[in-house]
């Protein structure tokens, strides 16, 4: 300890403190601040670049996912449209079939009705014809027996009435 105190030089202490404080102040202004700022700036720019790259990658990924979704949607849309078309086709065919069937039925029905009418008319005509024939026959047969006209007519009417009720 005695040696330490003996070795202590006030002048050296004075100059060291003075020069060192000056050195700190000067280096702070001219060296440390610019150096540390530059290093900081560089680190920030590197970090920024990395972040931007990461972001771009994320965006790319989301874009890809988006594309995928759009594609999928389009595919679904196509499916849907196709299905609709198919359904429509089937429906149209069915409708057409129904309509045709209905038309056919109607035609058949009207044909049947016409046939029926013709048949009735034919039967009626046949009946009239037969009646006329019968009258002719009967006239000829009854020409002698029924000389009076009025008796004849009443007789014929009675017969016809009977035939109709048949």
């Amino acid at each position, binding site marked *: 300890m005695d040696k*330490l105190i003996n*070795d*202590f*030089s*006030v*002048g*050296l*202490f*004075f*100059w*060291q*403190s003075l*020069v*060192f*404080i*000056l*050195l*700190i102040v*000067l*280096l*702070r202004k*001219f*060296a*440390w*601040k*610019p*150096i*540390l700022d*530059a*290093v900081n*700036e*560089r680190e920030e*720019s590197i970090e920024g670049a990395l972040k931007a790259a990461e972001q771009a990658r994320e965006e790319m990924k989301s874009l890809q996912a988006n594309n995928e979704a759009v594609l999928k949607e389009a595919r679904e849309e196509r499916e849907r449209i196709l299905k609709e078309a198919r359904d429509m086709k089937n429906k149209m065919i069915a409708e057409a079939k129904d309509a045709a069937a209905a038309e056919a039925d109607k035609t058949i029905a009207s044909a049947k009705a016409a046939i029926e009418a013709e048949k009735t008319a034919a039967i009626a005509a046949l009946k009239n014809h037969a009646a006329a024939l019968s009258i002719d026959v009967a006239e000829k047969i009854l020409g002698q027996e029924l000389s009076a006209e009025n008796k004849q007519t009443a007789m014929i009417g009675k017969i016809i009435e009977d035939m109709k009720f048949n």
Partner: protein
Amino acid sequence: MPNSMRSNFTVLIALAGFLFFTPSTYAQGENHEEIQHEQAHHEDAGHSEASGEKDIKGVIKETIEHHLADSYEFHITEGVGFPLPVILVDGGLKVFLSSAFHHGGVATVNGAHYKVNHGKIYKTDAAGTIAYDDHHHPTNEKPLDLSITKNVFMILVMAIFMFFLFRGVAKTYQTSLAPKKAGRFLEPIIIYVRDEIAIPNIGEKHYKKYMSYLLTVFFFIWFLNLVGMTPLGVNVTGNIAITFSLALMTFIITQVSGKKDYWMHIFWMPGVPVLIRPVLAVIELIGLFVKPFSLMIRLYANMLAGHVVIMSILGLIFIFSSWIAAVPFSFLTLFLSVLELLVAALQAYIFTMLTSLYFGAAVEEHEHH
């Protein structure tokens, strides 16, 4: 002037670095010359001790002491060197070159006489009489000595060197964000100090304002330690006044930046029984001063010891004075010199590390329960 000084110094550093790797032959030569010089010096100065026959051990001991001690002239080798200005405050400022001591060992300035005794300047008379007390300490009056000694000169040179070196590094960042030239080597060290020393110990929040001090202290100690490894014979960081100044700065900055929590932990430690708190306060108060004191002693003792050990081993070569001894001792010196290179960086690291640890404790904010 500073520019030429800087380039000269750079050359000197490079030269010293080159010489460092061939220490055996060079160091021998230097030591030998130094011893011769030492003897010549002592005879010249009319040393009060018996300057007759001295055994080799005494010469080596004196050489080592001479090497470690500060000096009023920059002595490189026999006949090569230059005097440095002596500045004394003794009834006014007195400035003269140390070469004035060469005339009979007594410098006469404005009628006042000064003499160097054991590395210190004393006021004396025209004949250069020095009176001693019982403990063989001179009783002459000592003027306030603010001389530019060898160590002060080295501090100035180092400050100028560091200023231009780091300003140069800073300038390269103006053109590009990537380091250039010396910055390629220095930038990783600067970032190391920031990321491995400052931020873990002080914390992200406060570390910025201490960076200037930490970086300056780290490079200052490291570079001066390295200069101490050169055969120039400078031993700045192994000087108690230097380490005291550095430790004092750490101490002052720590106390100034001490927050409420820091003082609370010293004087009224939370979380311990009240009765123990005053006892802890005494211990913490002692610790307050022991911390910078340990910083001071650690750096001083490590650097001083390194120099002493290397020079002692070199001295052994002369004690044995045989080539058989010279070879292994030269290799041992080489080995220890490489070790000292490591110690040079290690001590700078430890000083900076502990300093930031103390700063960290001062600004720490605790979560109280």
